[in-house]
């Protein structure tokens, strides 16, 4: 009898949860569907959910009209570039702080985090002027520099919390068995550190891909990543729903997939390890 009640309850919960889940997801689903409609069908009343003539014409149009691929590559270069450079700078620091902490390690970590709290708009003016004077405005290099700096504290923090979990005893054990420092690093530490580094990489690519303050303010036609490119649809161009949808779908699909794989790391990275 009790079992019966709980199955019933489970079904009710399932229906409610799925309904809410689909409602929250609906704008994304709608964008995806609209990207395969013709412009006329996209604004048809009543709107059709699935039963329309599916076409991939919008995707071709978006590419041929505005060189979509360039902006896509800008996003790839800027997000991967800033994340990789950030990792190269951060790994030694996080490593040192996790494995040979001093009295001041905690203060250094907190201070690094505090740089993240500075609102971007507080330094918008000097950054814009410096970029203008050094010719970095609207270049991929410029965007990589800024995004590396704004994400560096998060990268260090995430790596630190992961490295911290590697037990120190395992090092001592390896040393007792006669492993040299280089062997220690290659055979013992690296395999244990890789999952943490991978999660950090993933989360920061997501953050950099979606960053929409500096990319909007420091790039124009040439180096604009997808965030800035899509923003150009806020002009009357945006009234072409099907094309807006096609451009949007291509911009969000890669990150949606990456993000779904890294749900757990998302929580950890975004709360600086305060919630695991």
């Amino acid at each position, binding site marked *: 009898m009790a079992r019966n009640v709980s199955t019933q309850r489970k079904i009710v919960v399932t229906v409610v949860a799925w309904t809410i889940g689909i409602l929250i997801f609906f*704008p994304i689903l709608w964008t995806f569907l609209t990207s395969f409609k013709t412009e006329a069908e996209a604004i048809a009343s009543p709107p059709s959910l699935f039963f329309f003539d599916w076409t991939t014409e919008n995707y071709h149009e978006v590419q041929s009209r505005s060189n979509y691929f360039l902006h896509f590559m800008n996003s790839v270069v800027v997000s991967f570039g800033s994340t990789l450079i950030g990792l190269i700078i951060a790994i030694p620091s996080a490593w040192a702080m996790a494995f040979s902490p001093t009295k001041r390690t905690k203060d250094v970590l907190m201070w690094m985090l505090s740089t993240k709290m500075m609102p971007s708009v507080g330094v918008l003016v000097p950054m814009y002027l410096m970029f203008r004077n050094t010719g970095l405005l609207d270049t991929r290099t410029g965007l990589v520099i800024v995004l590396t700096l704004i994400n560096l504290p998060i990268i260090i923090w995430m790596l630190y919390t992961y490295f911290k979990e590697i037990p120190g005893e395992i090092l001592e054990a390896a040393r007792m068995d006669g492993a040299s420092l280089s062997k220690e690093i290659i055979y013992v530490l690296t395999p244990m550190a890789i999952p943490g580094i991978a999660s950090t990489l993933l989360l920061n690519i997501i953050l950099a891909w979606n960053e929409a303050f500096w990319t909007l*303010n420091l790039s124009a036609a040439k180096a604009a990543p997808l965030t800035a490119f899509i923003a150009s649809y806020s002009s009357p161009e945006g009234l072409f729903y099907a094309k807006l949808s096609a451009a949007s779908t291509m911009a969000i699909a890669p990150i*949606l997939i990456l993000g779904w794989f890294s749900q757990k790391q998302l929580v950890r990275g*975004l709360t600086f390890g305060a919630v695991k």
Partner: protein
Amino acid sequence: MATLHTRSAARLMIAPSVLLLLAWMIVPLAMTIYFSFLRYNLLMPGMEEFAGFSNYSYFLTDPAFFQAIFNTLAIVLGVLFITVVGGIALALLLDQPMFGQGIVRILVIAPFLIMPTVAALVWKNMFMNPVNGLFAWVAKLFGLQPFDFLANAPLMSVILIVAWQWLPFATLILLTALQSLDEEQKEAAQMDGAGAWSRFIYLVLPHLSRAITVVILIQTIFLLSVFAEILVTTNGGPGTQSTNLTFLVYAQALLQFDVGGASAGGIIAVILANIVAFFLMRMIGKTLEA
């Protein structure tokens, strides 16, 4: 374990990040402070002169400034209210046994992964547009007059869009916290005759309080600088009805070319954010000791 040798090596390993972040924090911020005391307009190069606090007094007496402060607070508080209440409800729901839990989780998380410009434009055009938007169609279905969201309730529309983006964040973090609640504790409370409501008030909510605080503080940091969503939907308008502090400084700098005024606004934004950051840092600092 740490010898003198490894300690100096450690210092060398930390140095690059410390120096970079130090430069990043000090150089532009010092420049902003310097500019904020200058009369400096990009359209009139070579005319810079010391202006004392006049940029600040200009900013602080501008009616647009108070509107912007009000709007900034409205966005922060409005989004926080929706996401925290909604997040708790959703987390409790998703914590129940059900079929296809993993898929529902994926659906709920999705909005957080959407870039702000896409989210805002999709809502603006395909949902809130008074002629072709889905909401207009639904309104007509019920025989109602379509509502022009962005013209008549611009601030509320921005709040709705931003809340949609941040609801998954709150849900995900609260759900993670909820799952660390001891099952046995819940069972014990149930055995003692505690109903669902009192279990929620006396057991679940206190357990979640830490996670809720983290959600509020982190979201506040990000919500104080909402920008892209405003830029592509209302452009701060009509008038300054949906201009927040970040957008006001942006407009002053890159549309009016008033470097001095924008810098003063930027410094005010930094001070506001620091007040919040102070509390957040204390929270996170405590976890380092644990």
